[in-house]
């Protein structure tokens, strides 16, 4: 069949290439078309293959190394500063102290992280699903959209601080529901707003294309609107993932079940064991990053067309 390789730079003037069959009566079968002299070179196709794996490794290192180096230097400076000026632990503990406490309390950290993590994940899933459903409904009905917009904005404006103790009093003290509910509410808003935006922002050219094909509303949604909204949904998801962990930690500050990281932070601080409090804070950071990376991974899996060599040209 066709060996249609783009040979950049060469041109073929009007002479016939070979004497073989240029029948023209059918398009399938013998391939009369050869891709030659492509002056418009596609962005990713002729990649810098020379240097191979090393070039790619270097590129990855260039991305990963600077923040790593920065982090290490920052921690080193922190340690030096605390030691040099003999800063008291209640002001700013030294990283070495924090790390010691982290190691000492490791088992507790693991258990409490599991509890906070599961609260964050459950709340995340609930918030994602409700946010997605609400966005779908809002995008298809102007009435619903008009009703939901102020509600969503109000929900976002209410601080968690106000909600947490209220929920705690609504449920039993051994229930995890209040914390998970807080997380779900915090997650709902960014997911809803971003997904609605994605569902609404169908490019005009795609709308016209679908109209020219005389497709019905449902077909249009399935073929163009929903797939087009996927990147927007994941933007909301990524935002929400960090918020979920924060909410799960902070919700514990106000009573209710005390089996997570938040309660340990407060109790350590109350007992003036500041390095230990910071150790739990560190654990919360790690948890937050883990959930964020999970969201990123899911996004990567769901959008194969974005995995390319960084070419984002869309004319």
């Amino acid at each position, binding site marked *: *069949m*066709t060996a*249609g*390789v783009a040979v950049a730079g060469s041109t*073929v*003037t*009007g*002479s*016939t*290439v070979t*004497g073989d*069959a*240029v*029948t*023209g009566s059918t*398009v*399938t079968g013998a*391939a*009369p*078309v*050869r*891709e*030659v002299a492509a*002056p*418009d*070179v*596609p*962005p*990713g*196709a002729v990649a810098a293959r020379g240097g191979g794996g090393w070039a790619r490794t270097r590129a990855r290192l260039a991305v990963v190394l600077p923040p790593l180096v920065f982090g290490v230097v920052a921690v080193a400076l922190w340690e030096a500063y605390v030691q040099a000026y003999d800063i008291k632990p209640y002001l700013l503990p030294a990283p070495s102290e924090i790390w010691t406490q982290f190691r000492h309390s490791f088992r507790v950290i693991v258990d409490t992280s599991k509890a906070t993590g599961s609260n964050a994940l459950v709340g995340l899933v609930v918030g994602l699903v409700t946010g997605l459903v609400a966005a779908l409904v809002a995008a298809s009905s102007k009435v619903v959209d008009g009703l939901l917009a102020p509600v969503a904005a109000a929900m976002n404006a209410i601080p968690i601080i106000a909600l947490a103790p209220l929920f705690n009093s609504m449920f039993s003290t051994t229930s995890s529901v209040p914390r998970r509910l807080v997380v779900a509410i915090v997650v709902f808003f960014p997911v809803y707003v971003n997904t609605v935006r994605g569902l609404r922002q169908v*490019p005009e*050219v*795609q709308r*016209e*294309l*679908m*109209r*020219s*094909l*005389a*497709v019905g509303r449902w*077909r249009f949604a399935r*073929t*163009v609107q929903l*797939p*087009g909204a*996927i990147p927007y949904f994941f933007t909301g998801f990524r935002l929400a993932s960090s918020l979920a962990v924060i909410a799960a930690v902070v919700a514990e500050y106000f009573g209710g079940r005390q089996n997570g990281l938040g309660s340990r932070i407060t109790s350590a601080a109350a007992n003036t064991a500041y390095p230990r409090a910071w150790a739990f804070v560190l654990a919360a950071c790690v948890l937050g990053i883990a959930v964020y990376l999970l969201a990123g991974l899911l996004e990567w899996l769901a*959008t*194969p*067309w*974005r995995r*390319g*060599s960084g*070419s*984002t*040209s*869309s*004319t």
Partner: protein
Amino acid sequence: MTSTPPQTDQAAAGQAAPEQVTAAPADGGGPAPAVEVRGVDKVFPVAGGGATVALTGIDLTVAPGEFVSLIGPSGCGKSTLLRLVADLVEPTRGAVRVFGEPARAARQSKRYGIAFQQAGLLEWRTVAGNVELPLQVHGVKKRERRERARELLELVGLGDFAGHWPAQLSGGMQQRVAIARALAERPPLLLLDEPFGALDEMTRERMQAELARIRLETSTTVILVTHSIPEAVFLSDRVAVMSPRPGRITEIIDVDVPGRVTAPGESGGGAGGAGVPAVSAVPAVEDAVGQAEDVREQAAFFEAVTAVREALRAGGGS
């Protein structure tokens, strides 16, 4: 079997000058027109009261198999006119008929394929998936779809890129995919809104040669909106020159350039050509490009370009 370069001897021996006609094609009493626009006005309401008159008094008839270009400066309404034919906008007055049906019915029966200035490919579908789109939404079975997409991608010279994502293609390649998609259901009418507008000159000329070749292959009726005079003259049987404020067709020019790759059964001599053998084989891309270069270098070609340019100037544009 190589394709015969057509009518080059006729080109050497004196050329027919482009004639100027103001309304219907030469064969007035021929078969039913492919597209008929009668007395069409289009007025767009403007926010805050008032209105923009995009088009007034448009009369245009396109015969089946004809290639008509709409050319004019910005604001002359040529894209609006194309969208009226496509039933993407409705006329304020007058009627648009496509193959004897009202434009809306023609759209719902999918009598045309359309390509816009932006390729408008769906980024989450592969190249082949994009070409298959019209077939898929109209319920064609997977095997048939795949086969047809492969066929079309070969036709536009992108057979090796079927599995690529649109973001991996250059602008010219994306446009070729868009044109392949427009041809997916073998529509009798092809509507093109400045599809080559975003491309560089070399790619553009190459795409024009391919379009001419595709048209020869498929005998489709084509309406092309363009800014480029050489493009219009190279591809069209007739060029409708439009001017703005208000948008109207000022002149329709018959293009009569020998050696042009035309539809089978039509000689390159236009209304006056006699005894000239039609091109019987579909040339390969290189042949079409070669012939295209020959065509673009003929005196008749330049004369036609001049005629169109003068008509544009007379109409108050460019």
